[in-house]
C-alpha cells in the first residue's frame, strides 16, 4: 500500500472524526462518522484483512449507522432538547486529557525500531513450494488474509468464542426489549388483531 494513499485516507479519517465530535447537529455527526468508518474499511483492505473490510462496511456502515440515523429521525430533536454544551474550561480539560493520552501512545510507538510490512508467512511458503515445481492443489493454497484463511481460523481455533457471540447478541436483544418498552404500554392482550377493521388496512 503506497504511503501517499495511507496518508490521504488517514487525513480523511482524522478530519471526519474531528467533525463527528464537534458537530452540534447529530445527523451531521452521524454522516461524518460514516466517512471515518469507511476510511478505516479502506485501510483494512490495504492491510490484507479483506473479510473484515467487508464486515466494516456491512456492520458499521450498514447496521450501526442505520440504527443511529433511525434513532435521530425517531426523536426529531429540537434545539433545546439537545441540551447545553459544557463551558470552554471543560473542553480545554478534555483537550488536555486527549492530548496526554495521544502523547503516551506516540511515545510508546516511537520506541519501535523501524517496522516494515514483509511478505506474509503463508504467501512466502506457497511461492517457495511453487518455485520448487510442486503442483499445489487449490485446497492447500490459502493466502494470508483471504476470506478462506480467516474462516479456517475462525471455525477451528475460535469456534467456541464465535458461538458464544450468539449468547451476547441474545442478551442484547432481551435487554433492548426490556429497556425500550414503555412502562405504561398496552399489554399483549390489547394488541390482538381484533382492533383491525374487517376491510383491511385500505382505509
Amino acid at each position: 500500500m503506497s504511503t501517499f494513499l495511507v496518508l490521504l485516507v488517514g487525513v480523511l479519517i482524522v478530519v471526519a472524526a474531528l467533525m463527528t465530535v464537534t458537530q452540534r447537529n447529530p445527523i451531521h455527526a452521524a454522516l461524518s462518522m460514516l466517512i471515518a468508518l469507511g476510511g478505516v474499511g479502506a485501510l483494512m483492505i490495504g492491510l490484507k484483512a479483506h473479510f473484515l473490510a467487508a464486515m466494516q462496511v456491512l456492520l458499521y456502515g450498514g447496521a450501526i449507522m442505520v440504527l443511529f440515523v433511525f434513532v435521530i429521525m425517531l426523536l426529531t430533536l429540537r434545539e433545546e432538547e439537545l441540551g447545553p454544551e459544557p463551558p470552554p474550561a471543560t473542553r480545554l480539560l478534555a483537550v488536555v486529557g486527549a492530548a496526554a493520552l495521544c502523547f503516551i501512545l506516540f511515545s510508546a510507538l516511537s520506541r519501535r525500531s523501524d517496522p516494515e510490512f514483509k511478505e506474509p508467512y503463508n504467501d512466502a511458503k506457497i511461492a517457495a513450494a511453487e518455485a520448487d515445481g510442486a503442483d499445489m492443489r487449490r485446497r492447500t493454497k490459502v493466502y494470508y488474509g483471504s476470506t478462506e484463511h480467516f474462516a479456517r481460523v475462525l471455525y477451528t481455533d475460535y469456534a467456541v468464542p464465535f458461538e458464544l457471540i450468539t449468547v451476547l447478541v441474545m442478551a442484547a436483544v432481551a435487554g433492548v426489549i426490556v429497556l425500550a418498552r414503555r412502562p405504561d404500554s398496552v399489554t399483549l392482550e390489547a394488541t390482538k388483531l381484533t382492533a383491525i377493521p374487517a376491510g383491511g388496512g385500505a382505509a
Partner: protein
Amino acid sequence: MNSLTTPDAIQIIAALLFCIGVFGVLSRRNLLIILMSVELMLNGANLSLVGFAREFAHLPGKSESAQVMVLMAMAVAAAEVAVGLSILIALFRHVRSVSVDHPQATTLRD
C-alpha cells in the same frame, strides 16, 4: 518512528482516532455524540489490531488471531450500540432531553 513507514502510519492513525474518541466522550454532553465517540474509539482499537496482525504476518504463527478478535469486537460494538440507543430512548422519554447533564437524568428509573 524515525521515518513514516507504513506500519507506523497505520498505528498513528489508529492512535489519533482513539484520542479523538476520548475527546468526544469527555467534552460532549449529547448522549448520541458520546455513543458515536465510543464507536470511533472501538474503530481505532480495531485498526490498530489489524495493523499489528499484518505487521507480524511474516512470522510462522497465528497473527490472524488478531483479525478474529476484531470480528468479536465488531459484534460487541453492534450489541453495545443497540443497548446504548435504547437507553437513550428511555432517557429521552423520561426527561425530554438527550443531555447527560440534565438535572433529572440521574433519577432515571423503571
